[in-house]
């Protein structure tokens, strides 16, 4: 294996390759039933090929072997030896998923024995698919008389494309263009763009005949059915000459093209090439998503990446650079003022003007720093579409495998969130979606019985609300069974029978998030992934996110995830407890009240207080953290949590709000219950940031209530 640093490089690049592969496969998947663009097929082949070479180079054999098999199939596909059918597309998509999974293990530095079997199986299937019939017979290219000199530089694939053009009976041309060395790449790109609507550019050859020092000539091999005049009209200075010395043999012209027929029906009969457009889609259960933005393929959309890299719009970087430029200006102004102050000397009053100027610079500094901060945050933002696309792909497959009839609706892929959050969202969302598919949507016969449309609906929706993003995963399935939840909770000792009776519906539903609610046996049956909803909740808590359920028997279930826009910088309320300072993320603070201790009451010996007619637990942070408590008459109470589920955290002092950057606690301290990290204040002191989700969990747990 390569050293870790090099391995990072490998993972980054492999990941980029997989991202582009995913995009192309995505289009292929969506365009089932249409003639695939040869360029796209070649791009997919190139991706597999590059990945194979790259992973072999870095000694990552597992990835290399699988990519190799995929490359073989894709090579056969682009060379027209195997047809593109549903089975092949499905297998390729599975291969992509497997490659991503393998790469994830590589980036974590762990082995993947559990993936071995699946990978071997896939390799076997790919090998079978690759066994198509070779294109035997006379070489058409010999017959049309192409200059052997020119042929000698064609790769096998280019020859194949040329052959395909000959088969179609289109004219083959040589386009010669002479461009300046400085900008030939742009010129060629422009020429390609003009030629593409008229035919296919098979190859671009730098001419062997040297031009002068500053220019270079290219020969483009171009296949087109258009008339010479039509082609010449777009050449803009380039010259056109016929490539072949003889016309193509007439008998091959109408031959049905076995090459790229999209065989979506069960029949394997060859189809005439011209009929491609008529081939209707296969009986895929999942229709096109109806949302406007969910599946949009913009150049920005990509799949979850394993790397720490963010691709940044150059405009955003320019804005940052501008801010820095202005900061440098302010620095020199401040330097000048400092120099002026030094020269005045000690004991002499500085001119008033100097003070004013300093103040002005300080204000400008503050403004520019705000701008810079905002700019850096902008750079971290990526569209949720990155994850939504991947989920859509997986869901399509899962729906197909499940045999259920389900619409999958996606919207809000353009909502942007911090890269860190987007990356971490993919697993929890996948879990919730699988949950909806496996357990939410009823079998068709049950749906009919309840007079529901036979086709179920699963929604994935995101929208921004102020400084938060709400993501909903909903289904119109059977909803959760409260009686069953009650039973399971009592059975597993998570609550007493009496407690469950007194619980609100909402509290009852929230029991499913408790660790231990789903046993291992349930979990594998439930989701096949060994994580229960408690893990989903913990993962979200780590992102300072909250999850809530709404479920109606018969109507379906909706999970709502509330996430902050960014983790990088959050606004926090600083509180003082027994002389210590803690930071409470402001996003989870509902309100702050002042309570006289004389007004406290107890319920089952636990302190409670009343605010606007509602009785809430009064939790002394000092006691939770086992700190010495000072005697006092009043406390400030910070109300944290969700609408119905709130607690009041009693603190001694309110120390104002700060923008903080939460940092993880180093190494060995990772898991301190109730603390999500630390931040540094102006005086460089470390201040702990409270993990409100975990604290709520701990303080409202029924077990804790019982004890």
């Amino acid at each position, binding site marked *: 294996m390569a050293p870790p640093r090099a391995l990072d490089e490998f993972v980054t690049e492999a990941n980029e390759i997989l991202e582009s592969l995913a995009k192309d496969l995505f289009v292929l998947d969506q365009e089932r039933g249409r003639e695939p663009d040869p360029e796209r097929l070649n791009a997919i082949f190139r991706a597999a090929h590059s990945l194979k070479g790259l992973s072999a180079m870095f000694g990552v054999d597992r990835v290399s072997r699988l990519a190799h098999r995929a490359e073989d199939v894709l090579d056969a596909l682009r060379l027209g030896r195997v047809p593109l059918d549903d089975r092949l597309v499905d297998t390729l998509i599975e291969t992509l998923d497997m490659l991503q999974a393998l790469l994830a293990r590589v980036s974590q530095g762990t082995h993947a024995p559990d993936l071995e079997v699946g990978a071997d199986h896939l390799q076997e299937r790919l090998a079978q698919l690759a066994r198509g019939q070779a294109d035997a017979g006379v070489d058409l290219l010999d017959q049309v008389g192409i200059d052997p000199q020119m042929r*000698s530089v064609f790769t096998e694939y280019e020859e194949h494309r040329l052959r395909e053009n000959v088969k179609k009976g289109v004219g083959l041309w040589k386009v010669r263009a002479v461009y300046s060395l400085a900008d030939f790449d742009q010129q060629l790109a422009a020429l390609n763009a003009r030629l593409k609507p008229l035919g296919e550019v098979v190859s671009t050859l730098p001419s*062997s005949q040297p031009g002068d020092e500053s220019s270079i000539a290219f020969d483009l091999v171009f296949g087109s059915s258009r008339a010479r005049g039509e082609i010449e009209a777009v050449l803009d200075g380039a010259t056109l000459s016929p490539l072949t010395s003889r016309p193509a043999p007439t008998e091959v012209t109408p031959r049905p093209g076995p090459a790229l027929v999209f065989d979506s029906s069960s029949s394997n009969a060859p189809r005439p090439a011209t009929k491609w457009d008529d081939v209707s889609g296969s009986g895929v259960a999942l229709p096109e998503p109806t949302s406007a933005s969910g599946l949009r393929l913009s150049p920005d959309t990509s799949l979850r990446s394993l790397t720490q890299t963010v691709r940044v719009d150059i405009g955003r970087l320019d804005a940052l650079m501008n801010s820095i430029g202005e900061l440098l200006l302010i620095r020199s102004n401040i330097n000048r003022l400092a120099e002026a102050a030094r020269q005045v000397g000690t004991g002499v009053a500085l001119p008033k003007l100097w003070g004013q100027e300093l103040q002005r610079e300080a204000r400008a500094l503050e403004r520019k720093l705000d701008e810079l901060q905002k700019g850096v945050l902008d750079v971290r933002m990526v569209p949720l579409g990155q994850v939504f696309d991947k989920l859509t792909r997986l869901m399509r497959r899962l729906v197909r495998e499940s045999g259920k009839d389900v619409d999958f609706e996606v919207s809000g892929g353009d909502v942007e969130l911090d890269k860190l959050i987007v990356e971490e969202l993919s697993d929890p969302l996948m879990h919730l979606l699988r949950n909806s598919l496996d357990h939410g949507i009823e079998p068709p016969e049950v749906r009919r019985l309840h007079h529901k449309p036979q086709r179920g609906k699963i929604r994935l929706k995101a929208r921004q609300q102020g400084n938060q993003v709400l993501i909903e995963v909903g289904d119109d399935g059977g909803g959760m069974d409260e009686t069953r939840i009650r039973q399971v909770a009592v059975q597993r000792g998570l609550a007493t029978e009496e407690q469950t009776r007194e619980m609100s519906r909402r509290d009852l539903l929230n029991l499913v998030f408790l660790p231990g609610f789903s046993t291992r046996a349930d979990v594998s049956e439930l989701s096949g992934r060994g994580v229960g909803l408690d893990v989903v909740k913990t993962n979200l808590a780590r992102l300072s996110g909250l999850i809530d359920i709404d479920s109606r028997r018969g109507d379906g279930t909706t999970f709502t995830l509330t996430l902050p826009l960014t983790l990088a910088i959050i606004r926090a309320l600083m509180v003082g407890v027994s002389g210590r300072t803690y930071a409470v993320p402001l996003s989870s603070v509902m309100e702050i009240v002042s309570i006289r201790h004389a007004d406290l009451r107890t319920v089952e010996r636990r302190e409670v207080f009343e605010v606007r007619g509602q009785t809430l637990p009064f939790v002394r942070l000092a006691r939770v953290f086992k700190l010495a408590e000072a005697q006092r008459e009043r406390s400030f109470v910070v109300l944290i949590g969700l609408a119905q589920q709130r607690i009041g955290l009693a603190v001694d002092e309110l120390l104002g709000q700060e923008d903080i950057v939460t940092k993880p606690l180093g190494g060995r301290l990772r898991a301190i219950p109730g603390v999500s990290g630390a931040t540094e204040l102006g005086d460089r002191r470390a201040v702990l940031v409270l993990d409100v989700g975990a604290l709520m969990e701990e303080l409202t747990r029924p077990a804790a209530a019982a004890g």
Partner: protein
Amino acid sequence: MSTHKVLIVEDSRATRELLAAALGELDGVEVHLAVSGFEALKVLPRHRFELIITDINMPDINGLELINFVKKNPHYKETPLFVVTTEGRPQDRDRGLQLGASEYVVKPFEPADICALVRRYLKLG
């Protein structure tokens, strides 16, 4: 000591860096990098390269086309040229050698091996 300029044409960033790192260890070798065939065409006239190492499978022009260009051009035709590519498609390999490539190196290769080849062609001690 005189420096020997070597041009590496490779579209895979990681492989490029690996090659550059390996060759960079050799005394008197100055490594230049091109990320595509087009970029190679631009860089070629600006330096006197003593060795070119190119990948075959690249997005703009393929390595064979680059070899052909180099070998037919009176300015560069004496420059030795290695093809480095993923395990051989025999047809592409044969064409590479026919077009005038001096060596055909198959990935994955050991950096030490390619260094040895480079040393031999540049007649380094």
